[in-house]
């Protein structure tokens, strides 16, 4: 390197991040009692966490295969829109989806009305079934997108060759599709498993009790209801062990990109006629119904009532928007500093620091930060800043995935030209880095803002007198003000999508 690698802002951010995460984890470890302090319930929570994550992953992946196949080989009006919508759950606030699922699958939902009319037994949405249902709702679309990418990665020449050899659909499945699935499915399964491992909001709203409590929820209960900090910390260690174990497993399996681009390429596999045509249509309709019906139900109930929302909901909305924007700017600033340093060839530890948030769940970070800060501030004072910081940290790995390749390409293509012209510091940021990275920056900021906007995690540990919009929504649900809750849900969903859209579009305004 020309002048060696100077210590940059990126190193500073990496060090700060490592201090924040590892320091927090150390605090948790320091406070943790021995495993003997855990009750039978806690061990059940550990078992349930693993079990529900495995079942959710298996169901999502299995159900996604026919949907992805149908989408890969059929072309119809609205297909592109449907594929785009499959990406939406990633930024859909969890608590909003739960409202929708309750509207359809709850006691007074359409599904149970139908079952009652037919004289069949009702299904319950609370308990483990609800947790699994919600996880499949969120992760089926993700799995479909990942598997669809697999289908589209099969070169169309292979399908043409198969056609010229007179392959029947069965032969195509055997020689082309099953090998692809064998390659894609383990990563898809693991991606869903990882997401479900840190599930908190779903378990909070639909689970609970001895048979449907995740470790994250157990941390919350130990912290909030028993105020047993030692047990919360021990559970936190258990959660970290789960995440680290799953991450180590993930090193052996390629986990595909969850929120990628480029979903449409090539002509896709041949579209067989006969009963398969009808079956594909049915599969696509059912999947679309499963995903859209709950959201439509919420929108229909909630949208007309938004003007009637009480002022405290609007205050919560404003608070949430401000916090989401703060989180997004924090996350994107840190991402940019890290990505630029990584692109200049910094050591692996900078990149590792950026991925550290993956091993710490929000509730573990919240517990740790509380332990560290409790002499300096009250829980009420901590609530909002800690939430902003934790949400920013949680968004980092996603932002880095978008920014690192772009920053590397920028360095590769224009780094030498900029150096030769002595383009440095602020001028380089303004005239080269920001304009060239506007798109991934906007995308990363949108993602971070939407995730922060919809998050109902660490805030539940602390505050109730300054609720965010998701927390306010949860409080409305708990007091059975379902009409207001539906309206708040529509508002929350609209704000989350709007924030994503605004930032993402902002990045596309070509300077």
């Amino acid at each position: 390197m020309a002048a060696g690698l100077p210590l940059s802002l990126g190193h500073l951010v990496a060090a700060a991040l490592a201090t924040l995460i590892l320091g927090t984890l150390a605090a948790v470890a320091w406070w943790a009692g021995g495993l003997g302090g855990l009750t039978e319930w806690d061990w059940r929570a550990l078992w349930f966490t693993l079990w529900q994550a495995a079942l959710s992953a298996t169901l999502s992946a299995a159900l996604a295969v026919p949907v992805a196949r149908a989408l890969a080989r059929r072309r119809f009006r609205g297909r592109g829109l449907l594929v785009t919508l499959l990406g939406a759950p990633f930024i859909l606030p969890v608590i909003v989806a739960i409202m929708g699922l309750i509207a359809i699958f709850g006691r007074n939902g359409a599904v149970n009305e139908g079952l009652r009319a037919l004289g069949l037994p009702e299904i319950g949405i609370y308990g483990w079934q609800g947790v699994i249902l919600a996880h499949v709702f969120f992760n089926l679309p993700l799995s479909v997108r990942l598997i669809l990418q697999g289908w589209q990665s099969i070169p169309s020449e292979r399908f043409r060759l198969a056609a010229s050899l007179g392959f029947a659909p069965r032969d195509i499945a055997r020689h082309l599709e099953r090998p692809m699935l064998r390659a894609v499915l383990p990563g898809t399964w693991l991606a869903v498993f990882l997401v479900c491992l840190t599930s908190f909001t779903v378990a909070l709203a639909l689970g609970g009790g001895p048979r449907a409590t995740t470790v994250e929820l157990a941390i919350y209960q130990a912290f909030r209801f028993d105020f047993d900090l030692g047990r919360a910390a021990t559970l936190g260690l258990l959660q970290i062990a789960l995440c680290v174990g799953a991450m180590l497993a993930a090193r052996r399996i390629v986990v595909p990109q969850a929120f990628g681009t480029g979903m449409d390429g090539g002509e896709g596999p041949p579209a067989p006629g006969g009963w398969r045509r009808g079956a594909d249509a049915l599969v696509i309709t059912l999947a679309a119904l499963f995903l859209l019906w709950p959201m439509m139900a919420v929108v229909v109930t909630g949208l007309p009532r938004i003007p009637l929302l009480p002022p405290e909901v609007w205050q919560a909305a404003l608070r949430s928007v401000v916090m989401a924007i703060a989180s997004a700017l924090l996350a994107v600033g840190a991402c940019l500093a890290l990505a630029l340093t990584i692109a200049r060839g910094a050591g692996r530890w900078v990149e590792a620091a950026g991925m550290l948030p993956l091993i710490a769940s929000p509730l573990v970070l919240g517990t740790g930060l509380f332990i560290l800060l409790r002499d300096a501030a009250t829980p009420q004072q901590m609530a909002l800043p800690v939430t902003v910081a934790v949400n920013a940290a949680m968004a980092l790995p996603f932002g880095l995935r978008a920014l690192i390749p772009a920053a590397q390409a920028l360095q590769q293509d224009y780094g030498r030209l900029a150096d030769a012209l002595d383009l440095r510091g602020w001028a380089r940021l303004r005239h080269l880095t920001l304009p060239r990275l506007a798109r991934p920056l906007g995308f990363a900021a949108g993602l971070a803002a939407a995730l922060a906007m919809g998050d109902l995690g660490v805030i539940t540990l602390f505050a109730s007198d300054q609720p965010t919009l998701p927390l306010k929504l949860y409080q409305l649900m708990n007091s059975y003000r379902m009409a207001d809750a539906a309206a708040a849900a529509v508002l929350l969903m609209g704000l989350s999508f709007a924030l994503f859209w605004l930032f993402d579009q902002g990045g596309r305004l070509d300077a």
Partner: protein
Amino acid sequence: MTLEFRDIGLRQGNFSLQANMSLRRGGRYAVIGASGSGKSTLLSLVGGFLTPDQGGLVWDGQNITDLAPGQRPVSMLFQHHNLFPHLTVKQNIGMGLRPDLRLSRTQQDQVTRVLDQVGLAGMQERRPGALSGGQQSRVALARVLLRARPLLLLDEPFAALGPALKAEMLALLSRIAADTGATVLMVTHDPADARSFAPDTVLVDEGRVHPPCPTGPLLDNPPPGLRAYLG
């Protein structure tokens, strides 16, 4: 006044480069050699993108080995990416005067003047994407002209142009080099370019940089390594 390569050695994995020579001020040198022989590495050393493991680079009596690329008395044209696609022609050229683009009235006039000189009058506000390949090369050359640095390095910037356009660019380049009195080092794959543009040629053969020889005799009577390359 010379550019001296004083016992320069550079190692990159299995590859190593040695250079020990001096180049005359105002001279024009072709740099010739097979792919992977180290031509671009040699230019990167002069440009400041690589630092030698041993030896030093001296320009006009001053050791420039440790200067950052932008601080060196060097303008460089790369094979690709000589212009920022999101900036206008005027901004791309202006960056050669002030990277922060806060150009004074006089400096703006200078930009207009060099654009005129390379035959692109009135195209200030265009983006590189709206220009042809030849016009893009002219913009890059206009910036070289404006910066007027005494060393000019060309890493095959015109390789993608057709023969007629390339000849045109070399003619423009000759004019600019003469105007600014620059010492030119030009990597090329084309012996005809070397003959027409550079009286002297530096041969790079498997990491060894040979001191410059007159181009004509070298190409008429090449040593074995170069003979194999020229075919």
